[in-house]
């Protein structure tokens, strides 16, 4: 399993052709207390860079973009009852949704952990 990061502060774990997507610890820190997460419907076809979810904090509402092409296979319903999970464990229990990996070549354009850390340090 490999973990990738986007410039929009999402992480994705790729396990075979299943991708798990969430927001990074840096992102949750910038957003502040998260009060609501709107997740995509299972079966929805996503295009890389298109809107996939919405996260609302006490400060702002932000779009979450699909990191790759694919179809939504599962949404993390635990976030409905407890959106604070995205603050307390953003890169674990606070994952947003799972999707298929439509085009593995798109992973080449994403960052690994070291590159993402460097990216955040330079913001």
């Amino acid at each position, binding site marked *: 399993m490999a973990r990738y990061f986007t410039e929009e502060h999402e992480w994705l774990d790729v396990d075979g052709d299943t991708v798990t997507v969430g927001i990074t610890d840096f992102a949750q820190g910038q957003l502040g*207390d998260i*009060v*609501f997460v709107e997740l995509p419907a299972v079966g929805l076809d996503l295009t890389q860079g298109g809107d996939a979810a919405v996260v*609302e904090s*006490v*400060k*702002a509402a932000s779009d979450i973009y699909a990191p790759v092409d694919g179809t939504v296979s599962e949404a993390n319903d635990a976030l409905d009852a407890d*959106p*604070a999970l995205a603050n307390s464990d953003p890169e674990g229990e606070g994952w947003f949704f799972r999707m298929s990996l439509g085009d593995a070549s798109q992973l080449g354009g994403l960052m690994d952990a070291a590159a993402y850390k460097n990216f955040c340090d330079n913001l």
Partner: protein
Amino acid sequence: MSTLNPAGWRPEMTSGEAGAGGVPATFTGNRALMLEEPLIFEIGTRETTGVDFDEVAEDFDLGPLTRSAPIGLAGLSESETVRHYTRLSRQNYAIDLGLFPLGSCTMKHNPRLNEKVARMAGFGDVHPLQPQETVQGALAVIHELADWLVKLTGMASVAMSPKAGAHGELCGILCIKAALEARGEDRRVLLVPESAHGTNPATAAFAGFTVEGIPATSEGRVDSDALIARLGPDVAGVMITNPNTCGLFERDMKKISDAVHAAGGYVYCDGANFNAIVGRVRPGDLGVDAMHINLHKTFSTPHGGGGPGSGPVVLSAALAPYAPLPVVKPVDGKLRLVEEENAADHQPDSFGRMTAFHGQMGMFTRALTYILSHGSDGLRQVAEDAVLNANYVLRSLDDVLEAPFGASGPCMHEALFSDRGLADGFSTNDIAKGLIDEGYHPMTVYFPLVVHGAMLVEPTETESLDVLDQFIGALRSLAIRAKQGDEALKTAPHFAPRARLDETLAARKPVLSWQGE
């Protein structure tokens, strides 16, 4: 702890606890005129009522309509009710109490002359279903205000009925949709710059369009090259806020409009910030096709809990035929409402109706009073003074607060600062809370999103130099405290009836109705 008020009440004190400086807390929890007011359901008893009802006859029977359970309303006398709401109103902040720096809201003084005119019987006591010949004066107000709005904006016509800004946006976008349908074109994309108001993308989506964002440049204006490059046969138009939410004038507006028109699209301009340019710039000259005007901002009618909004939409000749009903038109020497029955003769291509009646009549009267009492030269000075005041705030504070677009030239109606340079752990929120202690409503915070920890201050032309200097002094002292890491600021406000409420819990688990009994 302030040295000015060592015995003052603080939020952590509860009733019965000794106050600071050895002063005991009060029996009631009140602090002189700062009153602890319960919810309306927590006062009075269910056995009393402020209304006298007739005795019910013994043989009176409502059958299945007979109430089987208590109604659940507080049983209050008139005096208890009046006192409750008057007490609550004393805990409110209002433009009649002081400078209201809420950016993008144009919280200007509501002249009392407006109120006097709006209360004249011929305006205040009319009914929308009255015969039209008996309300010619009221129709003349609508007609004359419409004429002023058209002249001030350099447009072809105006739809008066929309009830507020976002309603006006929807009206303008529906006009664009109707025009595209009349041309038989299926254009689905509306371009919305990052520097636009947050309601713009919502309006576009609500009207069935797909929203595409356009980035801002480093100087805080729309990237016109990126916008023009995106134009094409699928683009219905653009929604631009000008002056934008960074408080800057979109200098490329005419170039953008020309390119949009050449590509077959329409230009919607969000006119919420019209106060900065009224009398100085006519949006029609910039190629705008539709723009809403917030009468409750630029034209001084009360808002923010004090009154309803009103959002007339000025339209270009290309969109004017599609304007919603009703429309006031002179017919045979009388003013007439064009409605469904006679639309075929006067407004055959109207897209329909957005309101039951003519719009916010009470606001029309106030706005026209404001316009006539200022005149065209006075309105021009409104814009000049509003811009001068905002620039005075910007340049008086940019040595202690970072002004992210301070190098982009003069600002328009509002001054924008970021949280850069505050001590570790200190935020825009702390400065906003500190302003409450200083006796001000906080400025707009965390908007626009393109600026980190944004603080958006719109003083309007209402404020005098003395009032501005006092506000600037308060904000300056808070900025310095936040930069120096003054821990007392982290727990501000210290003098408000309530301190830092749990906003997160309120958003996650809102309790919106009375839960007792």
